[in-house]
């Protein structure tokens, strides 16, 4: 990839995750869901990297692997240039603190039986860092996300959706991470609240020098928030590049279709002539198409697309890579 090891904070190489499908009386593995099938990328210090795609493309699985919620079937994860697999235990513990996650659903991600103080201090208590001054730290964290000490003893259900998501962010910041995995952080929020949280995240990133892996299906938010973008389809990266590459010069047909499928909040742009409406559904990751996985829905597909899998190749611009036999020429 293009990132040099010096500015990379997290890198993944040829990441694969297969979930076994068991069947029969003996519960033997009869098939596998190929949720991730060879994904590589680098996340650089202080940047926001967007990971976009539709449900089932594997974007959330990447986030889960990074925070240790699931282990990859194969492939490597690097943290500050070191393979996580071969890390000594002490470093791994540090890694648990350095990469934190914010979940999509502000209702399910906060225990209904805890107060704000207990919620935000939980990582500190787990990691043994909640002793003297613990309360001050919690108040500091609450203030960082726009809440205050008066909220300390409230239960999660006494907060609005936007406030709950702020609590989730405060909790993720408790251990002074350098990387946040944001798994659809604003998708469950109301439109009028979304912008508040998006701005808050941007402020925190500036102040704390955080790197964000921004997982989202909402491309408008991604365009606003991200520096670089990776587009995934059925467990594979189909295109990656700087934000402007992806949004202004998409080279992969899927990226183009995805962009044009989003309804724009402007009636004047209705029925724009370059609109692409894909036919059919996303195929099952249990039995992905041969060759290029997008070919079953692609209007450009030729015979070669069924036989040969396109590899992710840099385009002339140097910042953009695309996995397509017939990329858009810009």
């Amino acid at each position, binding site marked *: 990839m293009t990132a040099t090891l010096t500015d990379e904070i997290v890198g993944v190489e040829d990441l694969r995750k297969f979930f076994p499908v068991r069947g029969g009386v003996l519960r033997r593995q009869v098939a596998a869901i190929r949720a991730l099938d060879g994904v590589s990328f680098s996340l650089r210090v202080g940047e926001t990297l967007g990971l976009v795609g539709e449900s089932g493309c594997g974007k959330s699985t990447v986030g889960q692997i990074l925070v240790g919620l699931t282990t990859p079937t194969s492939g490597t994860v690097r943290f500050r240039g070191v393979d996580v697999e071969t890390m000594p235990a002490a470093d791994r513990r540090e890694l648990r603190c350095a990469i934190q996650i914010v979940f999509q*659903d502000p209702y399910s991600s906060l225990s209904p039986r805890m107060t704000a103080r207990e919620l935000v201090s939980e990582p500190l208590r787990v990691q043994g860092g909640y002793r003297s001054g613990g309360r001050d730290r919690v108040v500091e964290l609450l203030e960082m996300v726009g809440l205050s000490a008066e909220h300390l003893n409230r*239960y999660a259900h006494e907060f*609005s959706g936007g406030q709950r998501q702020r609590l989730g962010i405060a*909790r993720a910041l408790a251990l002074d991470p350098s990387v946040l995995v944001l798994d659809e952080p604003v998708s469950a929020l109301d439109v009028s609240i979304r912008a508040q949280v998006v701005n808050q995240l941007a402020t925190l990133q500036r102040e704390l020098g955080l790197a964000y892996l921004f997982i989202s299906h909402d491309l408008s938010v991604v365009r606003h928030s991200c520096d670089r973008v990776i587009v995934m389809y059925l467990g594979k990266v189909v295109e990656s590049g700087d934000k402007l590459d992806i949004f202004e010069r998409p080279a992969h047909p899927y990226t183009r279709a995805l962009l044009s499928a989003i309804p724009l909040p402007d009636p004047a742009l209705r029925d724009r002539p370059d609109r692409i409406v894909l036919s059919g559904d996303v195929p099952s990751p249990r039995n992905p198409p041969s060759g290029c996985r997008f070919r079953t829905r692609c209007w450009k597909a030729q015979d070669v697309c069924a036989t040969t899998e396109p590899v992710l190749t840099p385009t002339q611009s140097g910042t953009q890579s695309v996995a397509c036999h017939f990329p858009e020429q810009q």
Partner: protein
Amino acid sequence: MTAAMEPAAALAATTPVSTRGPAGLAWRRFRRHRMAMVGLVTLGVIVVAALLADVIAPHHPNEVDLAAFRQAPSAEHWLGTDSAGRDVFARLLHAGRISLGVGIAASLISVAIGTLLGAVAGLFRGWADTVIMRTADIMLSFPALVVIIVVAGVLGPSVVTLVLAMGVFGWPAAGRVVRGVTLSVREREFVKAARSFGAGGWWLITRHLVPAALGPVTVVATLGVAQAIMAEATLSFLGLGVEPPAASWGNMLTDAQNLTLISSMPWMWLPPGIAVALTVLAVNFVGDGLRDALDPRTTLGALR
């Protein structure tokens, strides 16, 4: 930001001003459950009467008055006397201590074992789950009462044996409930969040899984108390539980094995019989009330 709540949350929960935990909300719902409150008050009266037995009852439960055996109720003996001339009212209250004590202790033991095993089974899955749940199946397929009778026969009848035997045999009920709750809660994102910042199994069990299961477990425990009281009465009636001269509702009923007594001296068996029935009924009402109060699905239904 203001303290205003989102309407969706307002529909489901509470006013934004007062700070109320889940327990506070459940109590508020419980109070509206009429039968449960009747049960709770009845149970309260029974418990207080048992605890204050020495104060309330004018006689010692084991005091034998040979001059007055099998006497009908009178001003001296409010509920009459039994075959050994002991005061039935005093025995009834003291028996309440033992019967309630046995019931609560046995239920607590089985719930404690069941909660731990259920949480472990649900959290770790795999072979731990298989071993624990198959053991539960095996225990449930045994006629528990028969096994306890055998145990009591081998070890000799005593209160401790009784409590331990019932406690150990009762856990699968709580185990299954807790495992079920654990299976659903472990997939919730707040548990994933805890795992992501390095929380281990013990942390998850004590901070997330057990608290989440506390509601349903309380219901199981309450109903378990009723079952244990019934079992104690049965075993003591058969002479395998609480040993005389100590009184329990069950061994007080032993006297009722005689047909003449049943027909002509109801004061000797009717009071303990009523006590068992009333207690079990009250406990079950409380259990139902708890279930409704703790199950959020009935929240709106209870408002009508």
